[in-house]
């Protein structure tokens, strides 16, 4: 078996059994990167020498018996908005072109403690603002399933790296769909956990009330295993939640009997590609055949999620990105007259167009005279959206729908019209507003061979139901192929 064909958990087992080593796995990944990275451009930073040294250290700890666990020795890719001590962290922005964090994000610390070995940092939309990974200041990432298409975003580099076997799994972050949508476009599994489950400490903030870190990986077993490791209560993140139910791998059972699944009619109206619709409804049928109870219902308020989201996300972004001022880290303009001019020139030269667009919008909706009409209004609608989900979850265990209205668009097709790009987030963003967990699982391809994902949505803290359904779905898909 080619070592690259292992899932993360499969590789962990093989390493534990002595069938391969962390160094061999890292060498295989680096050789694959050598072969395909020039075309796909999944990474912004790779330090092969350091990665191999870390793998060697992992092998030694495994041999000594001090490092055990399912992901010990497994190479991982990290999205470039997660701080990594001593390793360049740019958020794919010019303004952080030379930033070397002095500490690692808590999720990375948890992974390292479990023995996962970092390969490098993956490309993303600048500051996670975008749905295609084309707003990166360091070039676009291409979809390994078809390089004429985008990988999705903003965690496009992470999703593409998994799809291209340039890593065994990756971490991403999801503010409005940035894990689930690229996972869907690249044909991999991705999960956004319940808000507060994974510490945001060391995640460079975009929309703090919406951001959540999660895995991108080859299958649902990997997803549950990674989730178990990165979920932690962290005093350094004041929104971190202490959970006692993070034994996610216990939900890896092929049994959905009696599980109540609701399909929102509102998700299947205009704009949804027929092939996506068919694949998603087929997934519902597969779960039904395994004993789940599937019903259609009206979720309501779906069309209000996008304006609510962009108001809140832009407001939080404008506030969070104030810290990039050319004083403490990152880029500073070369020529300026005085302090304020230095701030302005630094930020204007350092940020790309999409980031500036959102900072401007956010500054406007928070400004005196508009705060009530826009920002507070959006927070009120957010409460209504949350209530609509509460009502749905009183009836259903899981909501099932598409991840995105289409498969991956062609490179260059989305950026010309920001509103159109924002509209493609329609099925994913409401989860961030309501804090809900969501799982994207591949369920087929369109006639051009581009992957289609189904989104399983759970009530807060109900990741296990998603993992159970996702696992059952995966088993059904396997049955179909064989």
């Amino acid at each position, binding site marked *: 078996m080619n070592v690259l064909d292992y899932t993360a958990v499969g590789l962990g087992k093989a390493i534990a059994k002595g069938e391969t080593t962390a160094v061999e796995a890292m060498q295989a990944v680096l050789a694959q990167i050598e072969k395909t990275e020039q075309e796909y451009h999944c990474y912004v930073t790779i330090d092969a020498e350091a990665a191999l040294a870390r793998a060697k250290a992992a092998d030694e700890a495994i041999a000594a018996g001090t490092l055990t666990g399912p992901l010990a020795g497994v190479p991982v890719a990290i999205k470039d908005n997660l701080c990594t001590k001593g390793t360049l962290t740019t958020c794919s922005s010019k303004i952080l072109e030379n930033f070397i964090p002095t500490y690692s994000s808590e999720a990375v610390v948890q992974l390292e403690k479990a023995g996962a070995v970092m390969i490098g940092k993956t490309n993303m939309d600048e500051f996670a603002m975008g749905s295609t990974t084309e707003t990166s200041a360091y070039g676009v990432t291409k979809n390994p399933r078809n390089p004429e298409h985008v990988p999705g975003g903003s965690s496009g580099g992470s999703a593409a790296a998994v799809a291209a076997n340039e890593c065994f799994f990756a971490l991403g972050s999801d503010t409005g769909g940035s894990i689930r949508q690229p996972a869907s476009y690249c044909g991999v599994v991705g999960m956004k956990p319940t808000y*507060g489950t994974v510490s945001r400490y060391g995640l460079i903030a975009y929309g703090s009330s919406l951001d959540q870190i999660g895995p991108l990986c080859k299958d649902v077993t990997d997803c549950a295993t990674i989730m178990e490791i990165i979920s932690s209560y962290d005093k350094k993140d004041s929104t971190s939640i202490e959970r006692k139910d993070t034994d996610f791998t216990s939900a890896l059972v092929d049994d959905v009997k009696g599980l109540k699944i609701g399909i929102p009619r509102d998700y299947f109206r205009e704009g949804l590609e027929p092939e996506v619709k068919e694949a998603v409804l087929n997934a519902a049928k597969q779960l039904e055949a395994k004993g789940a109870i599937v019903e259609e219902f009206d979720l309501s308020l779906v069309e209000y999620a996008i304006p609510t989201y962009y108001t809140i996300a832009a407001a939080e972004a404008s506030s969070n990105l104030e810290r990039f001022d*050319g004083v*403490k*880290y990152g880029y500073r303009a070369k020529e300026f007259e005085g*302090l304020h001019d230095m701030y302005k020139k630094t930020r204007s030269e350092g940020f790309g167009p999409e980031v500036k667009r959102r900072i*401007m919008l956010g500054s*406007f909706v928070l400004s005196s005279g508009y705060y009530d009409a826009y920002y507070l209004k959006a927070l009120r609608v957010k409460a209504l959206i949350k209530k609509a989900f509460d009502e749905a979850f009183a009836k259903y265990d899981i909501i099932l729908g598409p991840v995105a209205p289409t498969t991956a668009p062609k490179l260059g097709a989305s950026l010309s019209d920001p509103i159109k790009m924002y509209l493609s987030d329609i099925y994913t963003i409401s989860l961030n507003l309501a804090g809900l967990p969501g799982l994207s699982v591949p369920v087929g391809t369109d006639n051009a061979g581009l992957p289609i994902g189904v989104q399983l949505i759970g009530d807060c803290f109900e990741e296990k139901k998603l993992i159970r359904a996702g696992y059952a779905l995966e088993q059904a898909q396997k049955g179909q192929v064989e």
Partner: protein
Amino acid sequence: MANVISDETIEYVGILAKLELSEEEKEAAQNDMARMLDHIDKLSELDTTGIEPMSHVFPVSNVMREDVVTNGDDSENILKNAPEEKDSAFVVPKTVD
């Protein structure tokens, strides 16, 4: 477009955002913002009288801790990231005459 963003407004937002936009960027920003606000205006269709603004989905409150230093002094590495530093301090342009 229902919303029109005046030159003064874009100037004012630029000050708030600490961004210096070129004439071309300004025009694009006016256009983009007006279109976004047209889209956001959809929210006014909903009656939200009596609905409390929801800033956080869970009933959380501030997490307090004692003001005790638990991490070590890493100022040397932190300052390495500074565009300009001198004598263990960040250097900024002169702000007072």
